[in-house]
């Protein structure tokens, strides 16, 4: 069978009513053409074909494999000849092909087919009768609808079909006729979905006069019918409908009220808010939740009153929009105890109430730890860049690290709101420059580091922190070195190595750890700073003073695939505490070295590991490398473990 790929691209192929193209495609429809080609020709005729194609397509309607393709073309053509060909098919086709033709006539709305379809709808073949009922409903002429109504008693499919016809009438503005059909189905024997569809249609088609039926349906003990009402409540337009539903709300069963309330909230309109507020006032938690959706300034006092008893009230207060709501919450702060203030402060934070910032800054210094902490949390959402000096003062003067951490988060959030990224460090640097006491400088490095990391580095901050590493106060130097060790790019590594050489503990070890970390980032390719990681690690190697630092260095060397690194690792193989880690690092960097000028030296190192290493996994990996020159996956997972 010939296969082909056709990419639509040539507009000339696809102009409807193209006579030349039609003749070309008709030639492809001939019986000796491959089946796929004939099928494709039908599909193109569906787009471009002229009535000239109708006879050939009609002749294919009865074919098992091509019948549907031919029908696809006929169904698409606007010309009456296509209707005639399909109608002719009603007389000669059977089974599924007959159903297909019935469907197409329904899709085309062919009124001339109604008498024959009517006969088929009343015929003995159940499948074609169902298809005919659906087709008659789609055609929708009075005669067609009459045929469908005539089958209501004896074919369950007639109810569904009649509902389609009724819905079309409603869509054309013929509500009274639609009501009759919906009611006819409702009053008949139809059950299941047809009865539900009919009920919905009967309510909606009546407009505001549908309210009694809506209420009756809502009170039904059948959940499926009740669901129809809940849906119709959302769909039926009219202020009178809303008023009637609101009035009915209090008389409904407690089980139904939350669902009706939700539907009313979806519906909206005059009277709904007042009804919801009444229920919220009475302690209905669902109503309190709903106020988050539709509440206004009028809802605020009752929500404030519900705080402490209602789980939903804080969230609803956070959701209701408007600066006047912020003002009401701020006012409430003055008339409550510490626990109440804590709750209100959290809500102001959730609202991002910038107008509350000055009060929050005041409360951040409250004697009550919970109030102070809540205010600092909220400031992370509300504070702006102009507030940074005061936020910095909060951090510097914090009574403990918990409060300082919260202040630092607010500093970070406010710094990130500065539009130009390169200026985000400026307020902290200014504070660093002007702080007169060491105790005022030390706390600044943590938020500064956070901002710098979010920026992936900062020249001005780097210079300031480097300068601080030469501060006369050891606490300032230590904080600066720690900040430098977490720098987001490796240019700080040389400075750290120099500090590790000259400083005493604990600054020495902090500086060394930072330098090794940054060198590792470069060696692993995660940092593109043009530095020689081997040179950095070689300098660090001269400074290590304990096994912990040795382990750190050995791990870093495991990223440097150079013979000098291998030699350093060879030396560490003699130190019991790190020898396995050194062996593993060596195995890790060995593969490229096995194929160059250092192959003999590398092989020798691997042979020693394969012969003497205690860890079986590392031993096996070394042996595998010696055998194949490539690492095994299993052994490479060892390091992680």
């Amino acid at each position, binding site marked *: 069978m010939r296969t082909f790929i056709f990419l*639509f691209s040539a507009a000339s192929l696809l102009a409807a009513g193209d006579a030349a193209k039609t003749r070309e495609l008709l030639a492809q429809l001939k019986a000796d053409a491959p089946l796929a080609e004939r099928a494709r020709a039908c599909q193109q005729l569906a787009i471009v074909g002229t009535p000239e194609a109708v006879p050939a397509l009609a002749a294919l309607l009865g074919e098992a494999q091509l019948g549907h393709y031919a029908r696809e073309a006929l169904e698409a053509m606007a010309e009456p000849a296509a209707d005639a060909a399909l109608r002719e098919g009603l007389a000669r086709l059977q089974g599924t092909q007959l159903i297909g033709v019935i469907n197409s006539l329904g899709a085309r709305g062919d009124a001339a087919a109604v008498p024959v379809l009517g006969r088929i709808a009343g015929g003995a073949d159940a499948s074609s009768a169902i298809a005919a009922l659906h087709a008659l409903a789609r055609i929708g002429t009075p005669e067609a609808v009459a045929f469908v109504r005539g089958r209501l008693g004896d074919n369950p499919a007639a109810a569904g079909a009649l509902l389609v016809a009724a819905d079309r009438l409603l869509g054309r503005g013929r509500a009274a006729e639609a009501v009759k059909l919906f009611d006819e189905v409702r009053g008949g024997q139809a059950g299941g979905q047809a009865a539900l569809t009919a009920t919905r249609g009967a309510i909606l088609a009546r407009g505001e006069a549908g309210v009694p039926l809506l209420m009756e349906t809502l009170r039904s003990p059948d959940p499926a019918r009740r669901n129809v009402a809940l849906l119709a409540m959302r769909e039926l337009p009219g202020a009178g409908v809303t008023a009637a539903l609101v009035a009915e709300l209090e008389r409904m069963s407690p089980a139904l009220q939350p669902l009706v309330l939700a539907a009313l909230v*979806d519906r909206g309109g005059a009277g709904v808010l007042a009804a919801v507020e009444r229920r919220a006032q009475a302690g209905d938690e669902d109503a309190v939740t709903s106020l988050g959706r539709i509440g206004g300034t009028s809802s605020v006092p009752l929500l404030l009153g519900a705080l402490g008893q209602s789980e939903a009230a804080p969230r609803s207060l956070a*959701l209701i929009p408007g600066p006047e709501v912020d003002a009401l919450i701020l006012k409430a702060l003055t008339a409550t105890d510490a626990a109440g203030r804590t709750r209100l402060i959290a809500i102001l934070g959730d609202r991002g109430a910038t107008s509350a910032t000055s009060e929050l800054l005041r409360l951040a210094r409250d004697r009550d730890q919970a109030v102070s902490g809540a205010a600092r949390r909220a400031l992370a959402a509300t504070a702006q860049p102009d507030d940074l000096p005061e936020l910095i003062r909060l951090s510097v003067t914090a009574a403990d690290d918990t409060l300082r951490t919260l202040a630092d988060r607010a500093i970070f959030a406010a710094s990130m709101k500065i*539009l130009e990224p390169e200026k985000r460090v400026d307020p902290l640097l200014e504070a660093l420059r002007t702080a007169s006491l060491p105790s005022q400088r030390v706390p600044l490095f943590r938020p500064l580091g956070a901002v710098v990391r979010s920026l992936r580095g900062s020249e001005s901050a780097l210079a300031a922190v480097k300068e601080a590493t030469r501060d006369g106060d050891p606490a300032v130097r230590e904080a600066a070195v720690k900040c430098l060790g977490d720098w987001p790019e490796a240019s700080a590594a040389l400075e750290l190595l120099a500090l590790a050489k000259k400083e005493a503990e604990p600054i020495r070890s902090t500086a060394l750890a930072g330098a090794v970390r940054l060198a590792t980032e470069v060696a692993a390719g995660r940092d593109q700073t043009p530095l020689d990681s081997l040179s950095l690690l070689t300098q660090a190697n001269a400074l290590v003073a304990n096994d912990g630092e040795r382990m750190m260095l050995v791990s870093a060397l495991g990223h440097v695939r150079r013979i000098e690194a291998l030699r350093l690792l060879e030396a560490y193989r003699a130190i019991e505490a790190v020898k396995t880690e050194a062996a593993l690092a060596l195995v890790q960097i060995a593969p490229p070295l096995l194929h160059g000028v250092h192959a003999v030296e590398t092989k020798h190192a691997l042979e020693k590991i394969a012969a003497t290493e205690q860890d079986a996994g590392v031993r096996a990996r070394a042996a595998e490398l010696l055998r194949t020159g490539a690492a095994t996956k299993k052994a490479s997972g060892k390091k992680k473990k």
Partner: protein
Amino acid sequence: MKTPAAVSASASNSRRAFLKQALLAGVAPLIVPGRVLGRDGGVAPSNRLALGGIGIGPRGKMVLETMLAEKDVHYRATCDVQARLRTEWLGRAEQLYGKGACTAYRDFRELLARPDLDAVLIATGDRWHAVASMYAARAGKDVYCEKPCGITIGLCQSLSDTMRQTGRVFQAGTQRRNVPNFQFAVHLARSGKLGRLHTLHASIYKLQVLHDWLPAEPEPDPEVIDWNMWLGPAPWRPYNKAYVVDRRWRGYYDFDSGAKLHDWGAHTVDLCQWAGDCDDTVPTDYEPDGDTIRARYANGLRLVLRPNRWIGQPETAPNAANFAVGSTGTCPVRFEGDEGWVETGDNGTIELHPASLRQEWRAFVMRGTDPSRHTREFLDCVKSRGLPAANHRVMRHTHIACHAAAIAWQLGRKVKFDPVAEAFIGDEAANRMRTRAVREPWIA
């Protein structure tokens, strides 16, 4: 057919006002409190939603598992034309609820005939989505249907009409409506933070239509793979296991939706429609320009559907032939106004200008393509009868916009579309492409 005027409430008017506030506060919108809906734990088996699944392959699995994680769901029936998948999901249900708790079917009509099922998840291939959804609605089931929901404009119209007439809850599987980074971008667009909105950008696959038939192979035992049922409403063609087992049906005119445009377009055009406050309409002009389609709404707002030139997207990416992956991940969208722009995608990254817009971001912590909030919303609406985010009217307009764009591209020329009549203006070929006859005996 259009929605009757008497009941033509906006697709999402009431939702959107609330959503705006909910997004601002970083609170997930709930239609009805969870306590009322009985999903706060301890749900009695008799109060669980009885769920059926139709055509649960790899994508369906992702969605279904989010539903199975919900305490108020009981998976009672599964249906597939492949025995392997029937067995797999029967086993999964037994693992969850014990033996005999779930029944497997080859023919979805048998599953739909069960009166005890409340809702179905339809995750077949595109060719089945609309028809199976309509059968489900007529059988009284609420429907979560994977996108694209219909392979022609006509099927999308029929699907929407059927859902409206029957009053069933319908949620299209365009879950990005319920993913916060996308919601945030839409919030910026709709709240005026970008100024006057002028252009919406939707990522799409590189478009392609295939018409070849794979070589014929002997048809398998229908008990193992029911080929006729797999084809369903799509045109007949000879069996080849690659269609079924390898799911190599994407891009085929007979099986896929609109030249592969809907694969992402159903999501990204959907988000653009939402961002532009166009949920109840579609663009009026569509003009192909290579791989790009430029569309315009009646109010002048532009919609650009394109596979490339996204932020961070390599010009010669290995997958350039298929779809865009920029620095915001897959499925990017971009909204532009005269005071700013925002671009985001599946990895949750948000690129925007000016940077001050980031202040609007609060607690939009979820990202990616996780459908769990979307499926939860569907389940809540099954109980409350509320309108979910990707309801049938939203689906209708998003899908029609995608189809109209794909038809313009296939025709290789500019087309004009009447959003009210839902028909092309003065272009018979385009109008003929709005519908395709479904294969007998299926009724659309």
